[in-house]
């Protein structure tokens, strides 16, 4: 119908957007082990389903993959109820066991000789192969099979999110309030897990089961640094994932490298950049804020000393006296004192440095706000 490039971009963008919708809620609810566990345990069901069918986007694969992903999450809750360990450790045991079983089945029983795939397509993914599996209605070619299956799951995700938006929001922000109005947390957990499992088992054919974790968590984790509202978080993460898909595809396609690999690398670069230099929450901004706060504190210390006691600076200059008593360097003290003089908080009268009324007001107001001094 369309050109090959356009259809591939459409499929990979749809799968990234589908994954990033439940990812925004997972990141906000701090349900951090769900993505890893559901991707790794979906391998078991996918490899069982591939015994019976040779197509990667058949309904059997989606049903079996999401069933085993839900089974993994269920097992974690069950074992946690018995042992009371943290769920992260149990999730690693369950997910790696199911992954091993899946690989064993896939290497020994799945992939009968009529199909031309090898095992690596499950865990590494190949976007270009989705193009060759076409849907035909009365002999007319209307697009690839993967496009329709991903579109179906995306519609399911959007419907679930719009219907249960209020519950997700209340339960994610304040769990105590949610418990007090008798909201069932297990139902919301189950809904999120179903959404994640469906998205994983439908989009593993484009990105591979290990890189879907980045599709789920990456855009939402990057978007968390730019917004504080939940609805904006979901939209920004969808926007970031579609931008990453376009850029990654345009890098990968002319250079003959893996499409999903370059998209995931671009998501990683975006994530690291937004952690380091986001305008309000980034590490660098926080560090400079901290430095500015320290400088402000130094000014208050010197103002407070001059406010409470009068210093006789006839023998030596006031900078040296302050430097000796505070155990600071003279340069640092003189810099702060000169700055305060320029701001008219200190003044020089006959060679004696005295605090002005403005400085007095400021330091007394500051001391009142610090509760620890009273």
């Amino acid at each position, binding site marked *: 119908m369309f050109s090959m490039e356009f259809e591939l971009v459409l499929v990979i963008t749809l799968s990234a957007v589908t994954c990033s919708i439940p990812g925004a809620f997972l990141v906000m609810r701090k349900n951090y082990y769900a993505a890893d566990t559901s991707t790794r345990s979906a391998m078991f069901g996918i490899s069982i389903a591939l015994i019976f069918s040779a197509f990667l986007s058949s309904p059997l694969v989606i049903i079996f993959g999401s069933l085993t992903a839900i089974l993994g999450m269920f097992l974690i809750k069950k074992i946690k109820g018995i042992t009371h360990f943290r769920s*992260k*450790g149990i999730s*690693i045991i369950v997910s790696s066991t199911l992954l091993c079983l899946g690989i064993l089945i896939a290497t020994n029983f799945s992939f009968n000789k009529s199909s031309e795939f090898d095992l690596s397509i499950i865990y590494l993914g190949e976007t270009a192969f989705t193009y060759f599996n076409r849907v035909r209605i009365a002999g007319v070619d209307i697009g690839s099979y993967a496009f329709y299956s991903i579109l179906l799951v995306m519609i399911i995700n959007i419907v679930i999110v719009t219907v249960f938006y209020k519950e997700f929001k209340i339960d994610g922000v304040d769990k105590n309030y949610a418990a007090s109005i008798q909201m069932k947390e297990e139902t919301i957990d189950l809904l999120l897990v179903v959404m994640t499992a469906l998205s994983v088992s439908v989009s593993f054919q484009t990105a591979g089961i290990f890189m879907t974790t*980045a599709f789920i968590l990456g855009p939402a*984790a990057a978007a968390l640094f730019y917004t504080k509202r939940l609805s904006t978080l979901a939209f920004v993460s969808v926007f970031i994932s579609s931008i990453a898909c376009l850029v990654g595809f345009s890098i990968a396609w002319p250079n*003959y490298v893996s499409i999903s*690999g370059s998209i995931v690398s671009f998501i990683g670069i975006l994530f690291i950049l937004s*952690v380091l230099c986001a305008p309000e929450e980034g590490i660098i901004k926080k560090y400079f804020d901290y430095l500015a706060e320290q400088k402000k504190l130094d000014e208050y210390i010197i103002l407070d000393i001059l406010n409470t006691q009068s210093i006789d600076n006839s023998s030596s200059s006031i900078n040296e006296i302050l430097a000796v008593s505070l155990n600071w360097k003279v340069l640092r003290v003189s810099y702060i004192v000169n700055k305060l003089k320029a701001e008219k908080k200190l003044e020089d009268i006959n060679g004696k440095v005295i605090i002005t009324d403005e400085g007095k007001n400021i330091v007394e107001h500051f001391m009142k706000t610090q509760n620890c001094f009273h």
Partner: protein
Amino acid sequence: MIEISDTFIFNTMLKSASFLGLSSGMLGVILSYQRRSIEINALAAGSFVGILVFYLLAGVGVYISPYIFEQIDKYVFSFIGSIVGALFMIVLLHILYKTDRLHMHIIQSLMTAVMLGVGITLITYIRHTGGSLDSGIDIYLFGEKTSLTSEEFVFLRVIATAIVVILLLYFSRLKIVVFNKDIALTTHFHTSFYYFLVNIMVICLVAFSIKIMGVFLSVSIFLIPAVTARLWSNRLFIIMITAGLIGAVSGALGTTVSGLLGNITLGISITLILAVIFIISLIISPYKGILGKKLYSGGK
């Protein structure tokens, strides 16, 4: 079984898998109490990328000066690459932990997937350009029986023994650092030294374990023995010794199973045996297992 156990490869692999299991099981207890267990996944993916980058650099080196670089074995490049990659990854992760907006587990699992993506992009690039890459890369995905060279066997045993000795020597200090950092900081010993010590030991072990266990499964030999040993005891020293023994036994059994049945890679067989040990001890362990709880609650 008799004809397999006579071969040189099987003997050395058996020994090195049990040495790796012993040391990584003991180290995994400390890591799991520091809440850094998933970080091993990210480190393994990072060292996978490091190996690929050093393959590319080796190709560039041969292009510049063939006389020098063709004499160096390519396993040297892969070994240096795995250590440098893990080192880079641990530095990057500890920079990213400084943000207070995200939980560290999200950062770890996200960076794992991102590093795998970078690795797969590099693999396809190397395959397309037709560099010096041959079958050496598929080893790292799920582990291989014949992946270690004879120098690396010696290295692995020395490092594993050294890690066990260090863990036993510094045990009391490490216990304080892991459980209560504030007391460790106020009692005036070098807390950051012990952090660096743990980090260095992790990097050394990850560089070996991705060759034996594979990138995706190397976390299991660190973490599953620690969780299993937690079922049996409440004291840290006993947990540590039990975890080491479980790791060693499962390494030996896994090598045997993988040698008997030809089509199972080493990482998968070791992980499955660890899972079987976990399920058995979940059922029969006292106080915390299913049977033990029923017996101690007076048959309710």
